[in-house]
């Protein structure tokens, strides 16, 4: 099994984690009119990068949401950052 790092619990088995989405996507500002393309970009478009990626994952047992940096080609896990506090 691959080991992922939960910022709260530490290194754990990959089966305890759930991929949420790519990091850095901003929900459209719904106080203004959002175009169809604007919604589609947010909901459907994916960078789907081959190589270094930043993604939002959750650790199911403790519900921690965090940003994981890893490599989608080599599957190397590089770093996990807690989302508690500002994340860009």
């Amino acid at each position: 099994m691959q080991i992922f790092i939960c910022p709260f619990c530490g290194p754990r088995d990959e089966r305890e984690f759930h991929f949420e989405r790519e990091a850095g996507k901003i929900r459209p500002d719904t106080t203004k009119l959002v175009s169809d393309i604007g919604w589609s970009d947010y909901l459907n478009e994916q960078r789907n990068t081959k190589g270094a990626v930043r993604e939002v994952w959750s650790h199911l047992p403790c519900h921690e949401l965090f940003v994981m940096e890893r490599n989608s080609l080599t599957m190397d896990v590089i770093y996990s950052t807690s989302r508690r506090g500002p994340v860009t």
Partner: protein
Amino acid sequence: MFQRYSAFSLFQQGLRSHRGWTSAWRTPLPKSTYDVIIIGGGGHGLATAYYLARNHGITNVAVIEKNWLGGGNTGRNTTVVRSNYFYPESVDLYELSVKLYEKLSRDINFNVMFSQRGMIVTAHSEPEMEMAARQVNAMRINGTDAELLDEAQFRKKVPIFNFRPDARFPVHGAILQKRGGTARHDAVAWAYARAADSAGVDIIQNCEVEDFIVENGKCVGVNTKLGEIRAGAVGVAAAGHSSDLLQKVDITLPLNSYTLQAFVSEPLKPVIDTVVYCPLTGAYVSQSDKGGLVIGGGLDRVPSYGQRGNLPMQEAVMSGLIEMVPLLSKVKLLRQWGGTVDVSPDSSPILGPTGMEGLYLNCGWGTGGFKAIPAGGYLFASILATGGHHDISKPFDLGRFITGKLIDEAAGAGIAH
């Protein structure tokens, strides 16, 4: 150099110790200009080249492949062919494929070993049987074949299934599509390659596309390891690598690339003569002509370009298989592998223009691209030849993600693909 294959030519070659066979296709160097370039020498790319020549008379075509022919998902799938979908748009598409498969070996003089041994999806409760009846009705209304089997009929078709009283998922019945089945995956790629090559198409292997040539907002060719190649139209049939390629021209696609694994066991005496999929375990199995059990399941849950699988999914698929057919528990696996599949939000493919003039897409087949090779090629050839949609490909345009007119087969058919 085109040799016609037949029982007679096989006999004749047998008398000469099979020394007279020639290469099935050429290994040309790329020309500087083509009418159409297709990126990706898998089943879809090669079929597209063949149908461009056969249906549209366009033979000044190059298929550019970064590795070897059919070495991606075409050579990594579980060879299942079926059209058991829920929505009319999907049935039209996959039914075209099954119909083309039915005639393929004869049409292009290459035995692709298409065996219509039936595709069975099990149902495990009375509510599931009602949903199965709904699925059967939808398939029949949409114009393909489907039958609802009760438990006794299913038991007769698949006697090795788990009918024990303590089964975790007792079987109540199943959906059978008789015209579904399997084909020899490599043969499909080779058959299309040979037929396209004999029509004049250049198949260029080991030639990675490095960049697109864009002039005045129009795609006019590609830069490759073997230099610049120009074309009137460029078609991308690169499956899991589509996002990575199109990112070179700043086009983002609604795709996630995941690993899908498959497994083959040691060869056994015949134990199953159909394809069985159990939605509850997520595993499915058929038996190849060599006797190996061909086993598949769901996606690895980690987005990946790794072309190798992770252990949790191997465990899930194997335990699913053992639950379905406990007597296989002592069987040993011979091989395991993974392919990079391109999954769209509605689990349906994307066919058509990219928004950039001269650049077209055939992707998003997710875990079910193999069954769609003839239809994907047929429709993509039509799109590349005319610059517009075929009636069957129109619903699968990229624009559906903006209009919201999705074809959500993951929800509709409830079948992993």
